[in-house]
């Protein structure tokens, strides 16, 4: 990488010459460790990932441990070579390019600060490697340390700092190079809750200030929802859904996404014969799951769903209202018995066992607007608006041995 790309201000000027394509593109990326790694499904850590990450976007890779998110990040950074597919940084294929020649920087989960160097020397490390003039190094390090509010700690050794301060040094050390994209591998994982929450806001502020693309790996769904412009939910080496936080939360595409992000209720059944018709929303076709005994779930009809086909529907706990009497009309209604009531301060959580045996969670605000505040053992009717029923796509089949060209579900 030429030193001048580093010294240049963030890539705004670039858009003048090239159309504003994605900052990072992953095209059918596969990473197979072969027989080396035990346990990983089908031997492959990443089984065909397609992603387009936009310029200046705060993009999160979210998933449980072992889902391939860190491997994906390390492939973008250049520490792992994909066994298939392509990784493009600003349109340039990066496969085979060593990490020191990629214009991205990684913030390590363990921070990986150099213990034998002072804070200032840690931050200056990247600039020195790119032969930035001495005076400029001094200025940029100084300014960066001010940004992360550590200017008074410049001469300290990393070990003399607290965890939160070390975290900010790691961030400064990466950001001072003005990379085209900053990659963060669970950077807040080692901090306690309070500090983590304040660092989330801090990271968001810094990202807005510098305008650099952030690719953020986390297993913490709340963190991903708080910070991201878009989230890719990963599971078993595949991306299950990509979208803005609200979309991923409110319209989960698969049962896995529904279960992984927030608390979710999943109901399953078959589409009723007479179940199609137009619902409350003008023009939207709706279907009905008949649960018997006057109970039903009304849902927006999934594409190509025929009567009698099995359907899974999810509904978020805070969208459900509790009532004493069955609501009438073409709305979802399920009867159940309250098994547990948990007071959570701003809201209360109810665990309701339905007549069909499913346990559903319901959140009601404690602001006095709740129609009914039942106690344990009470029989209640659950209802929610049709728009809040989300039919789930069937989970991607755990194919026995997908080749490198296994399709990634969108």
């Amino acid at each position, binding site marked *: 990488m030429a030193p001048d790309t580093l010294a240049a201000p963030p890539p705004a000027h670039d858009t003048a010459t090239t159309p504003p394509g994605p900052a990072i593109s992953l095209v059918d990326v596969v990473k197979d460790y072969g027989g080396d790694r035990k346990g990983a499904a089908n031997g492959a850590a990443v089984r065909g990932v397609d992603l387009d990450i936009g310029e200046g976007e705060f993009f999160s890779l979210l998933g449980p441990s072992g889902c391939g998110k860190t491997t994906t990040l390390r492939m973008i950074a250049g*520490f792992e070579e994909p066994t298939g597919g392509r990784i493009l940084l600003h349109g340039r294929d990066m496969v085979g390019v060593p990490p*020191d020649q990629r214009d991205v920087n990684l913030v390590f989960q363990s921070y*990986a600060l150099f*213990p*034998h160097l002072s804070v200032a020397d840690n931050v200056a490390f990247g600039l020195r490697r790119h032969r930035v003039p001495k005076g400029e190094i001094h200025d940029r390090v100084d300014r960066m340390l001010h940004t992360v509010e550590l200017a008074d700690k410049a001469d300290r050794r990393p070990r003399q700092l607290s965890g939160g301060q070390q975290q900010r040094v790691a961030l400064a050390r990466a950001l001072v190079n003005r990379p085209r994209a900053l990659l963060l591998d669970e950077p807040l994982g080692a901090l306690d809750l309070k500090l983590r929450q304040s660092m989330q806001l801090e990271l968001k502020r810094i990202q807005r200030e510098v305008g650099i693309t952030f690719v953020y790996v986390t297993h913490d769904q709340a963190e991903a929802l708080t910070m991201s412009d878009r989230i890719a939910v990963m599971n078993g080496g595949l991306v299950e859904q990509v979208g803005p936080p609200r979309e991923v939360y409110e319209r989960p595409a698969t049962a896995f996404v529904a279960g992984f992000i927030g608390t979710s209720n999943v109901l399953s059944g078959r589409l009723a014969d007479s179940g199609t018709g137009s619902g409350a929303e003008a023009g939207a076709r709706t279907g009905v799951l008949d649960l018997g005994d006057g109970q039903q779930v009304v849902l927006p009809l999934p594409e190509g769903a025929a009567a009698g086909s099995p359907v899974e529907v999810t509904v978020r706990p805070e969208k459900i209202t509790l009532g004493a009497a069955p609501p009438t009309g073409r709305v979802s209604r399920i009867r159940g018995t309250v098994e547990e009531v948990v007071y959570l301060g701003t809201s209360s959580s109810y665990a309701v066992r339905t007549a069909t045996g499913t346990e559903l969670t319901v959140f009601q605000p404690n602001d006095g607007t709740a129609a009914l505040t039942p106690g344990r053992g009470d029989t209640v009717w659950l209802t929610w608006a049709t728009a809040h029923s989300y039919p789930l796509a069937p989970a991607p089949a755990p194919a026995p041995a997908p080749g490198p060209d296994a399709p990634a579900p969108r």
Partner: protein
Amino acid sequence: MTTTATPSRTVRRRRAVRRGSGLRLWTWLVIGWLLLPIAVMILFGFNDTSGKVNFTWQGFTLTWYEHLFAIPNLTDALLNSLGIGLVVAVVATLLGTPIGMALGRYRFRGRGSVDLLLFAAIAAPEIALGAALLSLFIILGVPRGYGTVVVAHVAFCIPYVAITVRARMAGYDPTLEEAARDLGAGPWTAFRLVTLPMLLPGVVSGALLCFALSVDDYVITSFNAGRTVTFPLWVYSAARTGVPPQVNVMGTLIFAAGLLVAGANVLLARRRAG
């Protein structure tokens, strides 16, 4: 100390001291055992003895420090030993460090065998090694002397370097090197600027150990030295007629220098740890 402490803390400290006093005595006994020979060596370097017999205390003098190089053969032998020690330390460190790094960082086929080999080389009886090397040199027709001593010393020093470096490598976080690569350092620069400084205390310990072992070695050297005389060879041959006090003085100075360098290395390691 006790004046600033609260009464209860003082009492507690006294009790702790009393409880630990047996252990303390034991510790000092062991330390005494370790230091006694060295103390005698240092002391008899100041002995105002006449001639070659240096077994009874005759009074304090600095004359042996003044006339340190009064015995030309002894001086030559010392210079030989120091020279060989330096060369051996450098060569064995260069050869042993990569072995230690590989053992500390990677898992590879033959790792266990290399491990075993290192310990075998340390455990092998010196006298057998020396004799075997001598026959090897004779078979190959290599004239014995300075060079063969260096080769022999390097051979038995490599495992010590490899083992000290490996111990250091075990505590090294390999993501540090990745971080350096990520920040734009090539593989060699990352090693030079990050890995090597972190390993340095181990490397220095290994080099010091080599130097000490080489300067000290009698058994293997005696087989392979040819006409070259090293410090231990000279002292051993002199012992039959009596060891001059200059030997004690030289021993004291080598010991003091070693102590200084080892102390500096500990300080260096502390500084690097931050």
